[in-house]
């Protein structure tokens, strides 16, 4: 193995029993039988080399699976604003269920006001949702007011047309 150049070594791994993955946790579960002779040998070097080779195979399988996931490029257009440069991979949700550390939160009992409001049908006042408004013609969001706002489409100063006034 050491005489062969590293780039010539195979990138695929064969396993008798197919392995299972939990990519959300970056985990691989390999239930194939291990070589009991090597494992019970007294030679530490042989045993460690075997364990390392098993781990390398697992890592190779995991990396192959991860690289098959959909790639998301960083930047504002690519999704999450917090991830700037770099190649990102969208991980699926973890599949292994692990116990929670605290119980599922109980819905808090409604306060006296909340109960009253619900009974009377009082909803919070709908405030104008910020400064942006969707412009159908342009197909993008523009400001309602302010610099380059939509309300500035009309000229704010129009000279009096004597004939139209009278």
């Amino acid at each position, binding site marked *: 193995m050491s005489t062969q150049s590293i780039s010539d070594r195979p990138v695929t791994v064969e396993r008798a029993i197919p392995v299972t993955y939990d990519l959300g946790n970056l985990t691989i579960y390999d239930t194939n039988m291990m070589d009991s002779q090597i494992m019970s040998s007294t030679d530490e070097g042989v045993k460690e080399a075997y364990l390392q080779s098993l781990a390398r195979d*697992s890592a190779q399988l995991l990396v192959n699976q991860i690289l098959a996931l959909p790639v998301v490029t960083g930047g504002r257009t690519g999704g999450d604003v917090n*991830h700037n440069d770099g190649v990102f991979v969208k991980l699926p949700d973890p599949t292994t269920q692990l116990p929670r550390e605290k119980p599922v939160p109980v819905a808090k009992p409604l306060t006296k006001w909340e109960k009253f409001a619900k009974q009377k049908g009082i909803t919070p006042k709908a405030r104008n949702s910020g400064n942006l408004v969707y412009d159908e013609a342009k197909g993008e969001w523009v400001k309602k007011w302010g610099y380059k706002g939509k309300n500035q489409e009309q000229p704010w100063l129009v000279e009096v047309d004597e004939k139209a006034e009278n």
Partner: protein
Amino acid sequence: MMRIVKPRNARSKRAMDSRAPKVVENTKTALTVRGSTCSVLVQNAMTDIAAYKQPDIKKFQKKNEIRPFEDASSLEFFSQKNDASLIIFGSNSKKRPNTLTWLRTFNYQVLDMFELKVLNYKAMSEFKKLTVNVGMKPMISFIGPIFDSHPHYQMVKSMFLDFFRGEQISMLDLAGLQYIISVTASGDGNISVYSGDTSNLPPINFRVYKIKTYKSKKQDKVPRVELEEMGPRLDFQLGRVREADPDMMKQAMKIPKELQPKAKKNVETDLLGDKVATIHVGKQDLMKLQTRKMKGLKKRSKDEFEGQGGVDDEIEDVIVSDEEQPKKRKRHIK
């Protein structure tokens, strides 16, 4: 035991809210606690393990007289005070030398725990210095059929996964795949749980390797993965186990409503594999139906209808009459 604290300012309220039960939970924090008989070997082993849990771990320095399997109440207190649901307790005795007790809490009460006796330990410092950045998510691999068949080994698998998996992330930077934790156990798992003889159980090998990728000539997109051991190297022997109370475990495994996958109504996949859905269009006001510009509705001579059947005839009559009648009425009124 803990008095209920009422938050006096926004900061303490935020701290309290961060510890309150949530739909999506925080990453579990861990504690390493030293027993009164904790040896240097166990202390070093705990420190090395803690390196892979940073920054979500707190290391206690003082020694504590605790026997977890007899009375874990002080560990529960530590869990509550520090908001830590994972604890590793290190101890050493003639009967149980160099033992690490791993335990999990649910709602600050012991959920499950097990003892792992350290058979071999090679410290991180004895390996070539290969460090990973703090907080990197490890790749984890469990090798061996016993992790699937033996309930105690399944508990070990669950605990290790809980401990080492780190923060939940949805987007992974490919440069962040730096190391792999490999947990192996030989044996076929056909070992009776109830035999009580713990010496027959295969040891658990815990290894950590740093990952190096090389461009492969065989395939362009997939690299060749090579490993280099960076330690620590630990071999564990499973000792006493305290399984979780089934009711408590059921509570702990509950998924809140908000996270349960929602079934989409009205959408089905038919036999051919096509997505079929019902689009609900509102009721059409037939009075306002535009019939003037529909060529198909024009009145035609009877000769043209020879091969079409009487259905078209009837529809045409109905629609035309509906539209014309109201108009006729209006004219009369005027």
